[in-house]
């Protein structure tokens, strides 16, 4: 006797307010570059398909939409796309909001200005490394534009504590000899901890040999809220979206 189990896929309803403005903006730009020519500015360029309607024949969840964009419909005429996480997050955010937002009304950041702020007044390079330049204290950002998303960049600049990835938490140790070392956590187990210190050097400690060992939940990156203007933050986000690594 065979027992048939019909799995009920949980359907996630995504709400427009869940999509950060920066993602919608970035997605709108990508849409203009890659999708417009077939789907049209209003999303109705392909017969039988209305991307702006909020309903898709071939996808329900955001994850499925990302799959549709990645795989395309080669026989029906849509090519597969090789988008990274940041791109897909943006495109989906845009598709979900096409009907309520006018693409022309959105002012995107300027990556060149963002780079100048990154290297200049914001001194991001005093903690971060990009393409072989800057400090290794913070994470290397050379390919951060493929790994995260516009919305995440927008948030971390004004609320680093809220975005601090647990693995990145600051470590403070004092060795038996009394030497204090601060750094960013790279790895940890019951007996040892690995981190990158203030000079960007790799350090490993056996906890039993430490006099003090503390992990902080407070980001070593301070907030730029109020220190940079909204358009400067948008410029930084735009710049980070261009950091796609070495090809």
């Amino acid at each position, binding site marked *: 006797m065979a027992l048939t189990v019909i799995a009920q896929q949980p359907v996630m309803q995504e709400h427009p307010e869940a999509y950060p403005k920066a993602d919608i903006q970035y997605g709108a730009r990508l849409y203009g570059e890659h999708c417009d020519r077939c789907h049209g500015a209003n999303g109705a360029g392909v017969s039988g398909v209305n991307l702006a309607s909020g309903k898709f024949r071939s996808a329900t969840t955001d994850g499925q939409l990302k799959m549709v964009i990645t795989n395309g419909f080669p026989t029906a005429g849509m090519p597969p796309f090789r988008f990274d996480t940041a791109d897909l997050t943006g495109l989906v955010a845009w598709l979900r909001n096409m009907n309520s937002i006018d693409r022309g009304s959105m002012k995107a950041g300027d990556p060149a200005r963002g780079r100048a702020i990154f290297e200049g007044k914001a*001194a991001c390079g005093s903690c971060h490394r990009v393409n072989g330049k800057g400090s290794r204290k913070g994470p290397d950002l050379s390919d951060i534009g493929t790994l995260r998303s516009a919305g995440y960049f927008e948030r971390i600049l004004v609320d680093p504590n809220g975005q601090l990835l647990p693995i990145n938490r600051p470590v403070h140790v004092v060795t038996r000899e009394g030497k204090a070392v601060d750094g960013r956590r790279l790895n940890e187990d019951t007996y040892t901890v690995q981190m990158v210190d203030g000079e960007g050097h790799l350090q*490993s400690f056996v906890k039993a040999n430490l006099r003090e060992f503390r992990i902080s939940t407070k980001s070593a990156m301070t907030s730029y809220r109020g220190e940079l203007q909204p358009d400067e933050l948008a410029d930084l986000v735009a710049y980070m979206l261009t950091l796609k690594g070495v090809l």
Partner: protein
Amino acid sequence: MTLRRYLGMALLAAGSLAAQNTVTPQRLLEASKEPGNWLTYSGDYSSHRYSGLAKITPANVKGLGLAWVYQSPVAGSWEATPLVVDGVMYITQRPNDVVALDAATGRVFWSYRYNNLEDPRVCCGANNRGLGVLGDTLFMGTLDASLVALDRHNGHLLWKTRVAEAKAGYSITVAPLVVKDKVIVGVGGGEWGIRGFIAAYSAATGKELWRFYTVPGPGEPGHETWLPCPTDSKEYCDPEAWKHGGASVWVTGSYDPATNLTYWGTGNAGPDYNPVQRPGDNLYTASVVALDTDTGKLRWHYQFTPGDRYDYDAVQVPVLADIQFQGKPVKAMLWANRNGNYYVLDRVTGKFLLGKPFIKVNWMSGFDTNGRPIQTPQPVGQPTYPGLQGGTNWYSPSYSPRTGLMYFPIWEDQAIVFSRIPVAYREGNGFGGGGFQPFVPSVGDPKKGIPTAAGVPNLRRGPINDWTDAAGHGAMLAVDPATGEPKWKFSMTDVTDVGAVTTASDLLFTGGREGYMQVLHARTGELLWKRNLGAQMLNSPITFEAGGKQYVAVMAGLGLFVFGLPE
């Protein structure tokens, strides 16, 4: 509004425990002066695989215990040599991952995955033999024939240079050799009809600086050794044989600052087994080439196996040693070759000084006065000694200036019945040109083989040694470098692909396919310590220091095992 960023920076700054200094060209030149580190594939530019460390001694080695193990997540033979720089160990694992670990605990700092672009064509699996280092950068060749540079402190990709076309059978498995401001690599693909080369790249930018083709083109010296096809040839002969003539490079070369020459061994001619379709000596296959490090220009060469038909790659590590030879000091190159002979060459001029079989050899009967082997091909169907895997192979030798002995792993009594078949070159297709049957002599009539006996296969098999020593067995051999006379031999039942490292306390660390890590006395060959690691070893051990303690690292199966003395 003032920015508080610089304050944050000051708070984060703190002294580092281990001094992690940049790896200057000078440090690489004097690598043997810092034995706690392992800075190049063979330990130093002269490729002695000898360490000045001496805390582990013949007297205390019995106390050797497991310090830590790192397990590769990817199955397959593991042939890499780690680098150790100021307490951080850098390894490669399949297919082209790089991992940075704490050398004292084996805990991982970062790992990097290289995504090979296409399905690479490699004869023998997704092998990679290791990294090069300069400054704050690591260098790795990839299976899809690119060269990548990584930030050694965080594993981020700095540049990538395409070296050759993977779809045409090119790959890089060799650990790069870094000299001055250059990263030198060679290409694999001897079974795919490549035209081999060695090339140097700018460590800073990845730009190619020079390229030396190991098969010379028309008009270049050596091209004349690719003879025109005879007009009356009854068999297939390829008039453009040189274009896919092989001479791959898959084991790291050496460097002599005094001559500014870099020395590299080259692989078999292509196709492997059918010399009839590529008449001539086929330079510079199965040879050693001495190149000017700044320009890549050939200074001299010596061909170990002219017109090779046995896949006798000369991809051994060139050992550079200053020895007494027939009463005179000689800047020598010591070379135990896959073809079964031990050689001494003058590394300044390339002059042949000595050639002497170290195992049973029947493909040649001796040398003429120029050092050219007098070849004696065996009749069709008869076994050739040594067989396909050779008398030795890519396994690293060791030279101890303390004992004055040269050490290398050997395969004894292993034979193959070779056959040849014409093969037309097609890009991306296998280019063997024949085959090989293992030969296990029958007891009653040793000239005949047992047709169904398991012969010595390539690299992998299960834990039961079903070919047994009747099909060949391994040993670690110590010879007088000037004469090739054996000083001692440590025999194993199974064969061995494991090189050696010797130390300033006269220890020799090695292993084999049986899975034993073994510590021998470098002066006598006496077994001092062994441990069953449960899977075959395929890399060559290294020794290093972390936190003031000496360790030995070996790979067996998917494990990187690190041993040290108790606290």
